[in-house]
């Protein structure tokens, strides 16, 4: 019987009914301390330190602080030092502040080549779905589950349903993977993928390079999806080849990976078709990622919405965002621009933004920053001279971390500030209490920094 890629992955990892073996457990400082405490209290050890890898990212300052003990904020310092201590005690490799391999957990996995097709990957972070771009089954877990994986290398899981979203055609010029996933979430809603492992497929996905596929899988959770995935192909294989974590017998592994894509005729619980050619550059207007419109649209009018519940949440969102219904999105003017996060902080994202910025100046009304996803991305970008492009335009060039995506470190918005952000969540207060977030692609963010308001990147020059 023809199988989906998800079926193949699930069955290859089922230890017993509903118990799934985990090939790689990524750990960071925020969701792990209580799990390590749990192990200590029960006298348990980490079953497979060789399948576990830690980094510090959420709390790390991006100002060049290069050691945990130097972090100014006491609570953040304690959390990062606790991670380092726990990893030492339990024998887990850790790339903490100061390591040249440190960075956002979902950026360093693929960068080190430890993210590979056919694997199960978990992390106490909802954006773990990013790794599904390689044809792995990857999803976020809570701290009790982190403890469970540390102790047993397995997880008790209910088998999710399967969804395939097939994108026909190709993305238009200036339209990016970020726009594709925002448009998809806008259509399906923030709960539209709940209960599903989602496979992104079709010519528009096959045409994408790995970073774009990662952006799409990354935001699966914003549609409620358990996991997002893309079938591995030669691009996937070439990405992994030569990286530090790549298998010793690479050709044999690559041959196994080529068997992973869903079989012809495999059946999914739900199928969705999307015309990629009809997707425009997108901007969020509200307080969840499903509240999104085309940049050529205006802020929607809650009064025109059918359901009373939608109307009420839209009214509340517009009040929070300080927006009037009917305002063209191109008149909305951010004071802050943030290019970074596990969604859009890889070298390719920075190159796209730099292309827009080169030879121009950030508008005087805007404070803009670029935060590379990892120390490796930073080093590579600097070798290409991208930092000079950004700095001469007036951008701040910072050190790797989650930064302003979630404001657990000093990079935050102040009350009422409006931000064009390449991150993944525009929830109330996400980037700082009272901060107003508009999610966009790196190109759209870069152009907004230059003009001081959103522009249709397709027509802007």
């Amino acid at each position, binding site marked *: 019987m023809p199988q989906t890629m998800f079926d193949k992955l699930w069955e290859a990892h089922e230890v*017993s009914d509903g*118990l799934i073996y985990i090939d790689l457990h990524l750990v960071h400082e925020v969701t792990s301390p209580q799990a390590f405490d749990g192990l200590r209290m029960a006298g348990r050890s980490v079953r497979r330190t060789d399948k576990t890898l830690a980094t510090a990212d959420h709390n790390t300052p991006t100002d060049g602080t290069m050691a945990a003990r130097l972090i100014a904020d006491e609570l953040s310092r304690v959390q990062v030092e606790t991670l380092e201590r726990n990893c030492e005690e339990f024998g887990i490799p850790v790339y903490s502040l100061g390591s040249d391999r440190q960075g956002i957990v979902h950026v360093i996995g693929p960068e080190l080549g430890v993210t590979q097709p056919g694997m199960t990957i978990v992390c106490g972070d909802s954006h773990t779905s990013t790794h599904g771009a390689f044809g792995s089954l990857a999803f976020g877990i809570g701290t009790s589950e982190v403890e469970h994986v540390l102790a047993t290398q397995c997880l008790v899981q209910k088998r999710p349903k399967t969804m395939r979203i097939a994108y026909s055609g190709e993305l238009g010029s200036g339209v990016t993977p970020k726009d594709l996933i925002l448009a998809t979430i806008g259509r399906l809603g923030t709960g539209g993928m709940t209960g599903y492992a989602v496979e992104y497929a079709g010519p528009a996905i096959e045409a994408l390079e790995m970073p774009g596929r990662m952006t799409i899988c990354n935001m699966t959770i914003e549609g409620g999806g358990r996991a997002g995935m893309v079938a591995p192909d030669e691009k996937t294989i070439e990405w992994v080849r030569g990286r530090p974590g*790549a298998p010793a017998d690479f050709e044999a592994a690559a041959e196994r990976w080529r068997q992973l894509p869903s079989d012809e005729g495999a059946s999914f619980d739900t199928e969705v078709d999307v015309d990629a050619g009809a997707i425009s550059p997108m901007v969020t207007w509200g307080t969840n990622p499903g509240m999104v419109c085309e940049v050529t649209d205006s802020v929607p009018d809650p009064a025109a919405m059918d359901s009373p519940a939608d109307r009420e949440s839209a009214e509340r969102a517009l009040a929070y965002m300080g927006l009037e219904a009917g305002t063209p999105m191109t008149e909305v003017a951010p004071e802050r621009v943030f290019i970074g996060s596990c969604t859009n902080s890889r070298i390719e994202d920075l190159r796209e933004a730099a292309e827009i910025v080169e030879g121009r100046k950030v508008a005087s009304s805007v404070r803009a920053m670029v935060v590379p996803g990892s120390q490796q991305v930073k080093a590579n970008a600097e070798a290409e001279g991208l930092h000079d492009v950004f700095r001469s335009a007036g951008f701040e060039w910072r050190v790797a971390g989650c930064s302003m995506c*979630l404001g657990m470190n000093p990079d935050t918005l102040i009350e009422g500030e409006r931000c064009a952000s390449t991150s993944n969540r525009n929830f109330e*207060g996400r980037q700082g209490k009272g901060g107003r977030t508009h999610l966009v692609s790196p190109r759209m963010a870069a152009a907004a920094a230059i003009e001081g308001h959103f522009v249709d990147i397709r027509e802007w020059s």
Partner: protein
Amino acid sequence: MRPIDVIEGKVSVLDRADVDTDQIIPKQFLKRVERTGFGEFLFYDWIRDGEIELEPNPILVTGANFGCGSSREHAPWALEDFGFQAIVAPSFADIFYSNCTKIGLLPAILDEEHCRAVAEAGEARIDVDDETVTCAAGVFEFAVEPDVKHRLLNGLDDIGITLENAGAIDSFEQSGAAERGPVTTAL
């Protein structure tokens, strides 16, 4: 975790859909390395800004897609520490639902109409074994996976149950099926 069987008492209502975990427990409180004491920070901004009022009753009734967004288990910890023993909603985000069941906070799914009826009744009795919510408006059924129910009713530690099956994990590893992926300690 402690066993839960019957949850009975007054109902608090939060009439909003898509409540994300950033609202339930804002990011600044995730810096703590302890597992307890999160209750006082529950819905920190919404409560302090006077947007909502919540009593620490045994039961919270709320809108669809509750707990969406971040996987932070600090959200269920805060709800439980505040005093809630059960959350009733038309739907929950996947990771949040799972996190609740790991700490003995019951997530019960009822359709929207029944959620409203429970909210209006103001008091309810939830029987985990029978999978029912009883209030003045009637008796409504919800579903809970048999293994989750078994753990909730007996207050069982998930890890303990899995380790009873350690032989199966050993065999899986010895069969070569666990050879996929990198050796992180050799990087």
